[in-house]
């Protein structure tokens, strides 16, 4: 990738000569004929819809004011063509299969270390490696049942994987709510376009969880486990539980007796077979991990390791979505699947390597530097948009502990038309598709498109002021 060609970013709707690209043709015609002010009016309607939802789900504080942290919703859809998507889908499935194979391997025979592809230190010294999982056999050898893979686009056919999220990836409820809202606001667009549906995601998730159940359980009891109503993703936890028709539990609702997990119900104790947990490894069992955790269930790990209950995602997946392990995913694909990787990684410098370090220190103003363990867009340096002072302060942080950082070129994320105050204007986007692994690997067409609402900004994280869009995959 040549950094010079990145200066000009790829606009997904308009070609460089201003013509509307084929995939957006019908949408473009519709937009052109739309009477002035219609988009703004529908946008106000959308805001009202979301505010109502927000009022009902996202009330955190004591006062009405601080209550809602709505993630802004943009009413211009992002569109993919069938063949574009097909390639992405194959690439995503391939990647997640390899990641699960890697997780199984490092908790069993560690062939990949023996083959010299990745060092023992890189795996075993990783804080997210859980020795408790060694030799534990999971149904279908699946560890990451739900994976959120963040993709960015640089050019027509140039997609990169930015990050694998294999712990408790969130955002799928926005994907579903966005579609519902779009169908309500623009029914006429759905008549004009054959948009692949996503509404069956909860059903697909339920099937995936069912397949994760311990073998020999004919009718597994499945629950969603949340840290509680004060968690920022609580809405999603409650939403998915109700969409799947399963109980939403907290740690205090569960207990372990003779290595089996039960929930307290008005009918007495009921055994639980699959827990879709949205609680991090560190907090799930105070007897094994953090002893001060009140969110977990004492004895849960023992029940899990004896195979009486399934956890989704499995314990110890964090070692595979770490930014320093990310580098090795293309190698994993070749090693475990014997295939050439369909999706590329972003070129990455590891600052633990002295050669990489000296290159990066010499080119800080043009690079993005991230903490290996960081997430959510916190604690990163975006060279081109940072001041000299910020860069120098960051340089000191790197020099103190180089191994804690990786660096990547500043990617020219593609842009999509987005409704902002001045009208419809291009804004940078990424994409998080959700990949489900059970007996097969499945995926609903599309995912969650995140958009940086500030002009020129490349940071799409909702914690940093990003919004979301409905993502359409058109049928052929």
């Amino acid at each position, binding site marked *: 990738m040549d950094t010079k060609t990145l200066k000009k970013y790829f606009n997904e709707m308009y070609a460089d000569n201003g013509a509307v690209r084929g995939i957006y043709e019908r949408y473009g015609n519709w937009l052109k004929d739309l009477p002035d002010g219609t988009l703004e009016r529908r946008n106000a309607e959308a805001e009202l819809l979301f505010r109502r939802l927000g*009022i*009902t*789900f996202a*009330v955190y504080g*004591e*006062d*009405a004011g601080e209550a809602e942290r709505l993630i802004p919703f943009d009413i211009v859809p992002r569109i993919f063509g069938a063949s574009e998507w097909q390639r992405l889908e194959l690439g995503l499935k391939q990647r997640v299969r390899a990641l699960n194979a890697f997780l199984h391997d490092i908790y069993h025979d560690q062939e990949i270390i023996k083959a010299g592809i990745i060092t023992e230190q890189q795996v075993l010294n990783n804080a997210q490696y859980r020795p408790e999982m060694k030799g534990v056999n999971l149904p279908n050898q699946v560890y990451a049942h739900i994976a959120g893979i963040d993709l960015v686009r640089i050019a027509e056919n140039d997609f990169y994987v930015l990050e694998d999220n294999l712990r408790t990836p969130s955002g799928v409820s926005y994907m579903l709510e966005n579609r519902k809202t779009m169908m309500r606001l623009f029914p006429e667009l759905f008549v004009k376009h054959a948009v692949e549906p996503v509404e069956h995601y909860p059903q697909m998730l339920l099937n995936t969880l069912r397949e994760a159940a311990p073998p020999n359980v004919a009718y597994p009891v499945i629950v969603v486990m949340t840290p*509680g*109503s004060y968690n920022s993703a609580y809405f999603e936890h*409650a939403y998915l*539980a*109700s969409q799947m028709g399963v*109980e*939403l*539990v*907290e740690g*205090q*609702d569960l*207990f372990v*007796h003779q290595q089996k997990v*039960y*929930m*307290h*119900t*008005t*009918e*007495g*104790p009921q055994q639980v077979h699959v827990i879709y947990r949205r609680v991090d490894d560190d907090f799930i069992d105070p007897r094994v991990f953090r002893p001060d955790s009140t969110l977990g269930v004492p004895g849960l790990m023992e029940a899990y390791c004896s195979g009486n209950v399934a956890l989704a995602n499995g314990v110890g997946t964090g070692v595979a979505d770490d930014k320093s392990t990310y580098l090795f995913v293309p190698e994993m694909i070749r090693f475990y699947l014997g295939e050439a990787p369909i999706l590329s990684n972003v070129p990455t410098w590891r600052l633990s390597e002295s050669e990489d370090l000296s290159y990066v220190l010499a080119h800080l103003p043009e690079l993005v530097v991230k903490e290996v363990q960081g997430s959510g867009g916190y604690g990163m340096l975006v060279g081109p948009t940072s001041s000299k002072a910020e860069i120098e302060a960051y340089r000191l942080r790197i020099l103190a502990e180089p191994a804690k950082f990786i660096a990547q070129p500043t990617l020219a994320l593609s842009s999509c038309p987005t409704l902002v105050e001045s009208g419809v204007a291009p804004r940078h986007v990424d994409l998080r598709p959700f990949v489900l692994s059970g007996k097969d690997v499945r995926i609903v067409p599309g995912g969650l498109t995140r958009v940086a609402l500030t002009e020129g900004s490349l940071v799409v994280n909702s914690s940093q002021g990003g919004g979301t869009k409905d993502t359409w995959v058109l049928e052929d």
Partner: protein
Amino acid sequence: MLSRTAENLFWMARHIERAENTARVLDVAHRTSLLPLDIEGTQAYLWYAPLNITGCADSYEVKYGLARADAVSHYMALDPDNPTSIYNCLKLARENARTVRGAITTEMWEVINDTWLELNRLPKQMDYENFRDFFDWVKNRSHLFRGVTLGTIIKDIGLSFIKLGTFLERADNTARILDVKYHILLPSLDHIGGAADYYQWGSLLKSVSAFEAYQKTYRDVISPQRVSELLIFRDDMPRSLHACMDEVESALIAINGHSGKEARRLAGEQHAALHFGLTQDAFSDGLHEFLTDFLKNTALLSREIREAYLSRQETALIRQLTT
């Protein structure tokens, strides 16, 4: 249903009902205080009644000393330090509702949430006029919540736990009001039909919205036996002990868990005593004793319900697993 969900629904309903009952008791005290004082003796005497009914007399005395109109009203209505104040009841109702947001309807949540938000916009100190409006507002919010609940929620086990909370609290409250005022119900031959009795019994009836029901039912002067009959034994009077136990028993039958046998037995026993009991027996055995027994049994029933359905004590559950 998860025990935690059932527990939250139970307490959500119970706290709303308690807020309403406290507003009723205070409202009547306010009205009575407008009457010439010799009817109930001193002002302090009058204002101890609401404290005794809600069981917060001791904690009040620690903070304020003698019972005074303004202090008692504030303490029972708005004081965040009083765990049973209307303020805290509405706060706890909302907290319970929020954690079971998925088990109640959007409309129910909006009523509870709006109530709490509105409460926080009200003045922190109120005078006599404010309080009268406030009590009406609390009663109206409670009526609204009940109406919205019955009009929107699916009739499943969740509604049964809401009913349990509502009617156990209401039965408890009616029994306490009667018990605190029982001395005025003791027949005294000198005063039957006198003006003083009319006001005293009248205020008691009004506190449970039974004044009009009394007149419709008996079309006669107010007598202590009839007041007791109306509020204890009649099943057509919505706040009577009998009507409340009707609801409690049918909610327990609807829940029908295998762990709740003892709760159902206790409720059935209590219901039968009210169904077949006679007013004259209650009087001859002593009204105070009768009501004390009722309150004791209701507490016992509440404990059984908690252990059978709401508790998350592992030991109790493991016992169930092994039997």
